[in-house]
């Protein structure tokens, strides 16, 4: 099988000795119309990968900022099919940037996993992160996604034992998403030293690139964490901008925010 868009992207970054900048926003937040322009703005600012959150009524692993973004998107009536339409619309003018869908299992199950995988593949999505899908339960999803040329990114955490890390690595593809601390998204608990030790241990379990997320909010934290891994994921900081900025200023504000992250990573 040929390498997926996500794998090619991460390999190219590694070849260029650059750190991956993976940016998260919630689809449909604050309006459905805002999402595709926001995705392009992330890319203009220097994002390598886009994680598009699929809103869910009960985001039990997320902190207040992403909970609120989910609520805003659901208040707009955002559905999974519409999220896939957004991906397809983004693809009409950007065929290079990998797009991952991130969400909770119930929404995908409702569409049907096979139907979801094929619809997501058609829309031009490159992979999926399901917060509440541990590797033990992931075999079906992985197979369905792989058949569409998509990756299943799995999470590892500070509580992950070496045995679990090996199991996670054996199921995951694309990259491993290392959750930097015990907590929900956006909490102020980042400890770069601890992250460094954990990533080093995780390297023993996997050849996959390791991207670190949770608690990375600005250029300084991005740079410090990226130095320890293959890249970073930034979500809450961007989602907060989406919630606060006047709608017509969202693209410009996001672009500037991502550019400052990019510059810190490249410095």
């Amino acid at each position: 099988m040929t390498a997926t868009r996500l794998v090619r992207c991460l390999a190219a970054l590694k070849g260029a000795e650059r750190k991956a900048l993976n940016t998260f926003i919630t689809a449909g937040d604050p309006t459905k119309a805002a999402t595709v322009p926001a995705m392009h703005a992330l890319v203009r600012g220097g994002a390598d990968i886009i994680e598009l959150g699929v809103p869910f009524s009960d985001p039990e692993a997320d902190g207040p900022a992403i909970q609120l973004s989910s609520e805003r998107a659901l208040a707009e009536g955002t559905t999974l099919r519409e999220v896939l339409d957004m991906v397809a619309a983004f693809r009409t003018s950007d065929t290079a940037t990998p797009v991952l869908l991130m969400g909770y299992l119930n929404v995908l199950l409702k569409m049907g996993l096979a139907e979801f995988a094929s619809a997501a593949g058609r829309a031009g999505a490159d992979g999926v992160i399901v917060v509440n899908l541990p590797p033990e339960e992931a075999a079906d999803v992985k197979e369905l996604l792989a058949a569409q040329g998509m990756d299943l990114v799995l999470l590892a955490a500070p509580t992950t034992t070496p045995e679990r890390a090996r199991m996670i690595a054996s199921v995951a593809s694309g990259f491993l998403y290392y959750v930097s601390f015990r907590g929900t998204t956006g909490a102020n608990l980042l400890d770069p030293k601890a992250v460094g030790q954990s990533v080093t241990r995780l390297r023993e379990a996997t050849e996959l690139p390791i991207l670190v997320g949770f608690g990375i909010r600005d250029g300084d934290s991005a740079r410090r964490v990226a130095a320890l891994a293959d890249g970073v994921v930034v979500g809450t900081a961007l989602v907060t901008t989406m919630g606060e900025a006047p709608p017509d200023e969202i693209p410009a504000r996001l672009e500037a925010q991502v550019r400052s992250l990019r510059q810190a990573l490249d410095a």
Partner: protein
Amino acid sequence: MTPTDELEPMTQANLAPYDAPNAAGYFGDYGGRFVAETLMHALDELTAVFEELQGDAAFRAEFEQDLSRYVGRPTPLYRAERLARHAGGAAICLKREDLNHTGAHKINNTVGQALLARRMGKTRIIAETGAGQHGVATATVAARMGLECHVYMGAEDIRRQSLNVYRMKLLGAEVIPVNSGSRTLKDAMNEAMRDWVTHVDHTHYIIGSVAGPHPYPLLVREFQSVIGVEARAQCLEQEGRLPDLLVACVGGGSNAMGLFHPFVDDEGVDMVGVEAGGLGLATGEHAAPLNAGNPGVLHGARTYVMDDEDGQIVPTHSISAGLDYPGVGPEHSHWKDIGRARYGSVTDEEALAAFRLLNRTEGIMPALESSHAIAYAVAEAARRPASDLIVVNLSGRGDKDIGTVAEVDGIEL
């Protein structure tokens, strides 16, 4: 195909003792573990400690002694003659879980889980609560063991269950209002999961029902099965026979599973779980996922849930905060599918009528949750001969609901 070919495997299956869940925590298609990676190790640890302690005679002895000397078990099985006469039909016995310390069955589980927490060296306890009964039961065992205790409770439930909120505070627990989502039990559970993921190293999460990720549905069932073990022995001793029917209300389903499970291999014993019909199933304003929901994944388990066509969990309604929940324990989902139990529903209005009826006929004030079971049992008794015996789980007492009932009556207390 010959009849023998068809029948033989079926018969063997029927004769095999019930042994769910499997090692991965599945009851048939339901259960499992659907949580963030951060919690997986804690669930593994909890499973290991639980399995180890199940075979530990000293642990069992301590649990049983706590149930007898602290909780006040065994609870009576009481033959409700006047209630049965009112129904006109089958005999009705009430399993008096309302007589437990703190007034509900919830304490059976919290006593057991507190012992687990101590064994794991956890110094902090968290819990979610709807009606406040589980919160009170958790705050109670935390006080007794000197553990720090935080209880998450939906802001709407705090309003309708203010008595229990104050009880928890008197017990030294901190009650944390949850203002997200529908501000009820499901949101309290989301928030408890967020707390647990943040403080997992020193915190044990005492889930109050047979819900959540494996091993919770199993371990809560095991701690609550004392209800059915006692009821079964009491039936044989007092009535000289096993019951024909067991009835219990189902929110998450812990009092029902606690009563039902010890009877699972008694083929002649039928079981009905009663969900909250709210304003009526047809209105959509209810909390009856087994009657009107479909399989999904919520709060760590695959189980029946109430969601919309896009998989979003929908708001529920019940007059009883303890049943106001869009999911249900996965073992009940399994039993619905295999037909081991049936699941009915009772509306707010019918539950209120049963609340009043039990007060007037037996001098017992049931919780509004338990009133759902009473309502169903009375209707079912009327359809059955006098020779039939129905056992109803009177899972909690109704003092906490006096305010809600008075509000319905337009009385300000």
